[in-house]
């Protein structure tokens, strides 16, 4: 009984969870058919950029640059652009760089945010109110304001052109601390009190009671942070010049000049860069959508 209550996230999402975003089956009326038509029209519009990029990527460069815009190229579809991008390009390297920096950012963010959120939720220590206020206030600091001093700091710390320069400044998410704290607040204290009486330490309570009960919110925060880190452009763009360290978004920016007007290769690169997260999304759609809906209003 108690566990059922605990595993629920913030109240506003309780119902969405229960219904799982599903609606009861209703009969087809004119209104519903109209809704399907309009929704379908928007969906087609939204899929066109993907479709056009895919068609272009499978054309020969000659066909892609031909003045006649065609969905079926005269000389047929060819995977040449992908082969060329794989042979000459750095897409696998950039993907790897994005993967390990984003994973490191997500891991560090989760650990340090959950620890401080637990203290803010459960421990009555001196200065807690001030700490809470400062963390909440810092949510308003927009990352672009930090780029100049942060870059100067990276120079001073001698971290420019290292992965640390990309990772370290991206692990502070005050809004996520707040999201976690709100979730911890809802976990009944009785569960810990039993453990305290058995002589368990704070750290033990945190790792063995609080964290297992918080899996849904930890997953939501991890998803939010990972997507943000994976797609971040401005900071990694500033922090690294070393070609070997470029992340996918930053690396892609360099291909325009490298390939010039090789349209098929540009689209092949863009699609390859898009693929990892789209695949992850196809597999974890429910979790990702739930995660974004849970953290979305607090984040940004």
């Amino acid at each position, binding site marked *: 009984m108690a566990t059922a209550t605990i595993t629920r996230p913030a109240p506003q999402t309780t119902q969405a969870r229960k219904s799982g975003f599903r609606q009861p089956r209703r009969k087809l009326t004119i209104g*519903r058919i109209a809704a399907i038509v309009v929704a379908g029209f928007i969906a087609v519009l939204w899929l066109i950029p993907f479709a056009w*990029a895919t068609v272009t990527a499978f054309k020969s460069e000659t066909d892609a640059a031909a003045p006649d*815009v065609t969905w079926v190229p005269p000389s047929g579809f060819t995977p040449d652009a992908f082969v060329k991008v794989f042979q000459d390009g750095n897409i696998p390297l950039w993907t790897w760089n994005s993967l390990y920096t984003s994973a490191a950012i997500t891991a560090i963010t989760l650990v340090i945010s959950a620890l401080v959120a637990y203290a803010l939720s459960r421990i*009555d220590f001196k200065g807690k109110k001030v700490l809470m206020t400062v963390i909440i206030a810092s949510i308003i600091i927009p990352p672009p304001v930090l780029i*100049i001093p942060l870059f100067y700091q990276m120079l001073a710390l001698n971290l420019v052109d290292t992965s640390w320069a990309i990772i370290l400044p991206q692990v502070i998410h005050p809004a996520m601390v707040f999201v976690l704290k709100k979730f911890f607040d809802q976990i009944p204290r009785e569960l810990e009190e039993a453990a305290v009486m058995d002589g368990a330490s704070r750290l033990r309570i945190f790792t063995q009671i609080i964290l297992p009960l918080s899996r849904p919110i930890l997953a939501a925060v991890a998803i939010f942070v990972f997507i943000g880190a994976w797609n971040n452009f401005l900071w990694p763009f500033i922090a690294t010049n070393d070609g070997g360290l470029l992340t996918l978004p930053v690396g892609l920016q360099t291909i325009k000049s490298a390939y010039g007007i090789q349209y098929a290769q540009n689209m092949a690169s863009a699609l390859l860069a*898009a693929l990892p997260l789209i695949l992850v*999304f196809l597999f974890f759609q429910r979790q990702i959508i739930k995660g974004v809906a849970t953290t979305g209003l607090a984040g940004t």
Partner: protein
Amino acid sequence: MSTSTLSRPRPENLRTSLNRSNNNLSGWAFATPFLVFFLVFLVWPILYGFYMSLTGKSLTGANDSLIGFANYAEALADADMWHSLGNTLYFTVISTVPLVLVALVMAALLNVGLPAQWLWRLSYFAPYLLASTVVSLFFTWMYNPQLGLINEFLTGIGLPRVAWLNDPNVAMWAIVIATLWWTVGFNFLLYLAAMQNIPAQHYEAASLDGAGAWRQFFSITLPQLTPTTVMIVLLQILASLKIFDQVYQMTAGGPAGSTRPVVQYIFETGFTGYRLGYSAAISYIFFGLIVVVSVMQFVITRRRSA
């Protein structure tokens, strides 16, 4: 047996019985890892950035000395600064409206109870998972004046070609369209989650009273969504004010500076012009703008929850 039971604190006395200094110690111990990063990579840069804005610091190391508020005075008289700030505000205004309205329409359509929910959610939300660079490559290609899909469509239905990214009057709208496609899925999800939280009884009662779907949307759904709408609008304004990536990648701020946002101006004065101090001063003017909007958001949400 009985003594050990007695010595155990009773649950209701637990908090008072725990040693206070022990609490202080463990509280700060749990906070320390976060605090270290917080102080080094957020608090210090934001303070040092302000100090930099009061110096003539440059990447060439020319003048490190304090020059008071001279950078701010220069920025306030800098036509390029105002132009870029104006572009950012213009983008914020013309992007927020469609980014909220289209998201609402998408969510309302799905909330009617369409079959294959996952398919719709996938098509509307998928672009949000793309990096800005991918979006820029897609749209630069579609906006291509001669070979682009969009102009092909326009000439196909007898309309003139548009020089999307090369026409100063159109370029910002081209950026807005790309941004709408890219990020509307996020607002759409927030709306959808909020709509599905509206209790079904509201609709049942309205149905019994003979209110149609249209009526129900305007008299139940929309009013119930007001708090969500306020939050989405404010978050969207804050997000739009930070515009940089897609502009830098698609037009590099052009043509003729017509799309250059203030974040790009900060970036350029700092890293192309090497004037770190001046760039930091513009950052703080931009920060002031964000603070004003955030305080508005705070006041509104406080009033709502109070």
